[in-house]
């Protein structure tokens, strides 16, 4: 009876993955592979920053003003171990970039994670129950979407930072940024999940499960949720890039990370002041790193969107 399926050993999860269209599409996309490698490299180096970088740029005691504004190593006056030169505080640019990238990535991931949890949870509820819950949640979303994200982030960030007690300032600023970015982007996930939930809820497999008395919570989590994740996954990847950009923008505008805990945006803002004085390396390298990071993320997200879109296959 089970004609073509019997006889073959059942593949494991990993084998399934290696054999999947997704993996195959990935392998055949040069740009996606390239982007993944670059991204992996950026992330690994960022998280190995304490090991890799010659200096801890957040440790005030490690900064030596004598080493201020040294050019990159290949230029005249360049000094070991400052491969990419130093800024005006004697902060090693390479170390600053590695640590700054780490902050950017952490804020990006954290804000995506927070907004995912909130967005998926609320989206599932709105989509599954409908009615007034749906109405209230979606109206809140409308309001948040009516205020452009940069504005929300600036306001939240600048307002909330005021209320931070000094003891929490160091962790607090990053947390505030995460919340500021997440506050906006959960709406997007909530909407996607809600729409998808409303579709899935009517599907027959959900009815079949309801017929055997599966409780609503389990229905949502075990049945509906896994089937809404594909578009969410794509959106999350692209939003990760966006979150990094927003964080950089806020820091550039001066309402983000402070100069003694620089993220990439802060490094660019500070470096921008030295653009005309000849110390171009202070602004150039962080800018390049930021662009590389976001381009890689977006390229991967772009590929993922096409690869996971059943209509494009």
């Amino acid at each position, binding site marked *: *009876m089970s*004609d*073509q399926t019997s006889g073959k050993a059942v593949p494991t999860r990993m084998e399934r993955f290696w054999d999947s269209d997704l993996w*195959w599409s990935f392998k*055949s996309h040069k740009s996606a592979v390239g982007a993944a490698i670059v991204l992996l490299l950026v992330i690994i180096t960022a998280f190995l920053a304490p090991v890799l970088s010659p200096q801890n740029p957040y440790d005030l005691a490690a900064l030596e003003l004598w080493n201020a504004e040294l050019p990159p190593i290949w230029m005249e006056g360049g000094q070991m171990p400052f491969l990419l030169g130093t800024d005006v505080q004697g902060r090693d640019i390479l170390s600053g970039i590695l640590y700054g990238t780490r902050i950017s990535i952490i804020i990006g991931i954290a804000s995506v994670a927070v907004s995912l949890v909130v967005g998926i949870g609320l989206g599932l509820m709105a989509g599954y129950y409908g009615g007034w819950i749906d109405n209230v949640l979606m109206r809140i979303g409308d309001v948040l979407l009516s205020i452009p994200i940069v504005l929300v982030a600036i306001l939240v960030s600048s307002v909330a930072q005021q209320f931070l007690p000094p003891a929490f300032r160091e962790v607090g600023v990053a947390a505030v940024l995460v919340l500021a970015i997440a506050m906006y982007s959960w709406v997007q996930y909530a909407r996607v999940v809600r729409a998808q939930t409303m579709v899935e809820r009517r599907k027959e497999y959900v009815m079949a499960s309801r017929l055997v008395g599966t409780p609503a919570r389990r229905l949502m989590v075990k049945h509906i949720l896994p089937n809404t994740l594909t578009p969410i996954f794509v959106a999350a990847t692209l939003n990760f890039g966006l979150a990094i950009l927003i964080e950089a923008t806020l820091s550039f505008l001066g309402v983000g990370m402070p100069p003694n805990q620089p993220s990439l945006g802060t490094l660019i803002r500070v470096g921008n002041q030295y653009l005309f004085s000849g110390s171009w390396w202070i602004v150039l390298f962080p800018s390049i790193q930021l662009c590389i990071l976001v381009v890689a993320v977006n390229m991967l997200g772009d590929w993922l969107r096409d690869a996971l879109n059943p209509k494009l296959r």
Partner: protein
Amino acid sequence: MMVQPIPVPEDSINATPALDVQGLSVEFPTRRGVLKAIDDVSMQIAPGEILGVVGESGAGKSITGLAVLGLLEHPGRIAQGAIHVGGRRVDTLTEAELTKVRGREMGAIFQDPLTALNPLFTVGKQLVETIRLHTGMSKTEAEGRALELLRSVGIPAPEERLRQYPHQFSGGMRQRVVIALALAAGPRLIIADEPTTALDVSIQAQITALLRKLCDETGVGIMLVTHDMGVIAETADRVCVMYSGRVVESGPVGDVIHNPQHPYTKGLMAAIPSLHDRVEVLSQIDGSMPRLNARPSGCAFHPRCPHAGPKCSAQKPLLQKVGTTSAACWLQQGGTQ
């Protein structure tokens, strides 16, 4: 009411078939190798004839229709064979040349009338556009013909309907509009891909009757692609049974239904529950149609065939005349050994 066919040179009407497909193969290159969706398919449709192409999903019947229209989706391609529409070879035409042939020489009707019409244009606009494109008529002339077409496909109050948008039509009426559009330039051939599947039973009968009538009146040849043997029986003159990308049997409708030659056709006919007699157990063909990337060697049907012999798995049978019909089966062609 009869549609005036666009005058065609007298001699070509009956002399050449509306459609002549010879040895057509269609391939889809995929990462797991090249899929042969259609394998060596041949069929002819005479003017004024309805050829039913029947088969289960995945048998390649729709792809045959699309290949004739030159509308295979990327990366599908015609690998072999020749297609002549009204005597003109179309499979070698460039896209630009094909564009001139489509609509003018051959029309198409698709399954879902809801999505087949551009929602942003009125029905009249879409009709006039198509008519003028192929006939060079003036706008007023084209409008006149559009009215005539709508009337001929049985749409009441066509003057009013011309100014309406597709969403203002019911499903059956919309399918009539689609048929009118396919007929707009008086083609010799219409590819009707599951034209009744999306419709209710009572409407379905109206549409098949309409197709039958138009075919008789205008002499257009129709390729009726469907999975519903009943529709074929009601509508077609001849039938082509497809299985796994190949034609396994073809012949006049009555003969194929009542006296099928190929084991697959036999099984298929027996599997349809009868409207008249009640049996305890339906005859069934075990298993399911192979996927195109795992087509069995020799006769594609042999793993499911109760009569299969060694030859069946070794060699591909060709379509051979058996009485009034043709079948591709070694049983009919001198045994399975």
